[in-house]
């Protein structure tokens, strides 16, 4: 749709603010399940939405067919008026006019379907040819998307970019005992970053078999070392979600708990979120409210110094906008989300961290994670016993659990080996999977609660 049509549809409504988002995407999905090519497809999707703000109330209209756009804007404004009963607070930002066409080094949109299928097939064959592996899942998915954003304040932004995710899982069975192991990775559309993983895929498959004879760890508190991948999931769940201001801005007591200046961890703890780091899955130039991306310290030297905002939450809390309003697609309004979240590198060495532990657990890789703000869980796909300062035998996967007010304080060492993890995605309020990345160096946590046997 033409820019002048969109801009004219936005004009002359009685609203404090109106925005239009139109989106077109083309995806590729290739999935092997065991020997079967379960799915190969290239879905196309187009649609959009209108969001309007009147006296603090929001109206939202989503659709596939962008015709009669002015009427759709009218409906969103009527909805907003229907619910708006207070005062609007919405942070001012400079309207932006920009066209951004981002292509990765080896952008997935330029790769032939046959090549994507071949790569998935190669990884699948490695898994299936591993002795005692019962079956596999290899799922490749990419999406090239063009989003047009225009607002009643005069912003007009076109952003095109790609996102890509690869998941490999191996399953092994011994009678009724089934074990699985997985590898999850992705990139901001760069196909090159998921090529050449043959060795990692082989190791993943071997681990599924090894797990069949691995013992379970006992439930209770353990001294644990987290690898950079799991520590990234940890920081996302333990602190990232709590930093999203939409849980705090209307909650007076939460504002007191999450007050700037509160200490959450030791001086060695620094946590950052930001989309303004190029080339990662959570990177972008403008968020879904047209606000430029930033890089925000959440924790500096153990103390809360900032949080993530949309224009509405920033205004209500009188804090600067951070460009963290994101929508997973046109079916949903933007909400406050993370982008690329990480713990900055410290000074401890991995050997040093493990060396000081007489009895503990080394946890690696991830299954998932979730949070209720105060309490959170994050699950390791790999666990190893630590005995007398050395990493010892493989254990069954474990779910770790924490409490925001004690677990970050119990982080007693932060490594010097920061790595970003590009696998998976984030879910919130029914919007999933949103591309994000997270990262950390190795970290060590005292008295971490583990659910085991």
């Amino acid at each position, binding site marked *: 749709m033409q820019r002048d049509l969109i801009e004219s549809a936005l004009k002359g409504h009685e609203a404090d603010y109106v925005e239009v988002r139109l989106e077109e995407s083309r995806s590729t999905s290739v999935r092997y399940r065991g020997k079967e090519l379960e799915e190969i497809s290239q879905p196309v999707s187009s649609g959009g939405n209108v969001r309007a703000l009147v006296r603090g109330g929001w109206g939202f209209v989503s659709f596939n067919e962008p015709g009669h756009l002015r009427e759709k804007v009218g409906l969103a404004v009527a909805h907003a008026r229907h619910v708006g009963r207070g005062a609007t607070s919405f942070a001012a930002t400079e309207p932006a006019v920009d066209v951004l066409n981002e292509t990765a080094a080896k952008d997935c949109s330029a790769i032939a379907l046959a090549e994507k299928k071949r790569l998935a097939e190669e990884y699948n064959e490695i898994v299936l040819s591993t002795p005692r592996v019962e079956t596999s899942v290899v799922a490749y998915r990419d999406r090239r998307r063009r989003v047009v954003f225009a607002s009643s304040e005069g912003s007009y932004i076109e952003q095109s970019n790609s996102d890509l995710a690869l998941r490999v899982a191996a399953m092994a069975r011994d009678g009724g005992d089934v074990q699985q192991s997985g590898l999850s990775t992705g990139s901001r559309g760069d196909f090159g970053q998921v090529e050449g993983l043959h060795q990692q895929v082989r190791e993943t498959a071997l681990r599924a078999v090894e797990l069949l004879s691995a013992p379970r760890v006992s439930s209770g508190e353990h001294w644990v070392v987290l690898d950079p991948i799991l520590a990234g999931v940890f920081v996302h769940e333990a602190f990232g979600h709590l930093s999203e201001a939409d849980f705090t801005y209307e909650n007076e007591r939460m504002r007191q708990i999450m007050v700037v200046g509160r200490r959450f961890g030791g001086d060695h703890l620094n946590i950052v979120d930001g989309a303004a780091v190029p080339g990662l899955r959570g990177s972008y130039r403008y968020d879904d409210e047209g606000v430029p991306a930033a890089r925000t310290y959440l924790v500096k030297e153990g103390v809360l110094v900032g949080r993530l905002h949309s224009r509405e939450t920033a205004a209500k809390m009188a804090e600067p906008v951070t460009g963290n309003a994101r929508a997973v697609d046109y079916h949903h309004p933007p909400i406050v989300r993370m982008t690329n979240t990480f713990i900055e590198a410290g000074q401890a060495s991995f050997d040093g961290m493990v060396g000081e532990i007489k009895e503990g657990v080394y946890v690696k890789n991830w299954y998932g994670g979730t949070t209720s703000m105060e309490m959170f*869980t994050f699950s390791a796909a790999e666990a190893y016993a630590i005995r007398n300062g050395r990493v010892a035998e493989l254990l069954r996967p474990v779910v770790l659990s924490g409490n925001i007010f004690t677990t970050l304080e119990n982080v007693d060492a932060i490594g010097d080996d920061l790595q970003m993890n590009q696998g998976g995605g984030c879910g919130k309020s029914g919007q999933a999977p949103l591309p994000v990345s997270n990262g950390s160096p190795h970290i060590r946590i005292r008295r971490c609660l583990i659910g085991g046997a």
Partner: protein
Amino acid sequence: MSDPLKSRIEQVLLMAGKRAQEAEVFVGSVDDTPVVFEANRLKQLQTNRGMLVALRIVRDGKLGFATATSLDDIGSLVDRAVDISHFGAPARFELPSGQEYPRVSVYDREAETFDVDAMVELGQSLIARVREHTPDLLCDASVGRGAALVHVMNSRGGEASFTRSYFGLALEGTLIRGTDILFVGDSESSCHPIRDVDWLVKSTVNQLELSRRQAALTTGHMPVIFTPHGVVSALIAPLAAAFNGRVVLQGVSPLMNRTGEQVFSPELSLRDDATVAYRPRSRPCDDEGMPSRVIPLVEHGVVSGFIYDLQTAALAGTRSTGSGDRAGASLPSPSVSNLVVQTGKTGFEDMVRGLDEGLVVEQLMGATQTNVLGGDFSGNVLLGYKVEKGEMVGRVKDTVVSGNVYQALSAAIAVGREARWVGAVHTPAILCPDLAVGVKG
């Protein structure tokens, strides 16, 4: 089925029929209107309309597939399906010809057309009544209504369509004392309008009452009662995976080759039932046009069936159970509809009274983010209560529960007499006599 839509689908079939031996068109559309409350106040009103068109073809024995979000450009839809068929997997199944469908009531016009102002009032009274009990509670809530249309037609004369209405109420309350955060709330859904909030208020107030005090357990093994919410948060995902024909075919269901075997306690019976009247997951047919029916999965602890769609059924040498489900723009795959756990003999009060020390789990957070295929569950007790000498004495925190459904549900479990819907699962409480509980101490 409306005539313009039907004739458009027929055009696609005709066009596809010139380039492929078989074709199937699926059209699903939704129209829903949620009213959203945030921090006790009315915040947002939405109208969401969406459509998905999926074309599946069989060309020289191979599957082709394409999807779109409108029926405008059917030429490109057919072209893309043909392109994909060059890479596609062999089609192992036959599309169904004309079928007899059961009568399944899933539409109530009053739900689809429910007045928006009345929805706003419902949400307001819900929040007001819960806050009468606990004025400090901060509530997010939603009241939603809508309708979904499904049409499936294929080149073998198979044709099905239905419209389903939807109505839902949900509440989540947050109560903060010091640095302690308590989450309470519940939700309710139906194809009928839900006109009173009594039940939801009662359920939430009950959680608030039980959470007034805190109590602590010590790490060890103990009896754990899962309330219906607890059952859904911990035990259902591993079972839904194990009964999925896709998982069986892959050779990684712990239940494969065990039909007729006593795997679980005789107290446990479980079925998948897409025919329950006026439930939002019910339907007369699945997304491939196969008739819905009741599928017994466990009868008195004995494994009695699995769920299949067309492709997995053909690969397994059996018949589709009408369980083909399309998630987003994906090909159909087997999925449970309404899972129903048969009620047992023990009242919930009696379960609690019978325990000297134990735990009631209402919500186990993160429980399914582990080796679900192997039957494992492990999570943090987001909401749960300590039982001491037959009484719930307070809310526990910083507590984890873990186990494996094949061990937990083959033990001497007790199944509750009172069941309720939690989303698409109808279940009573289940008492597991011995589970590992870890506590931060």
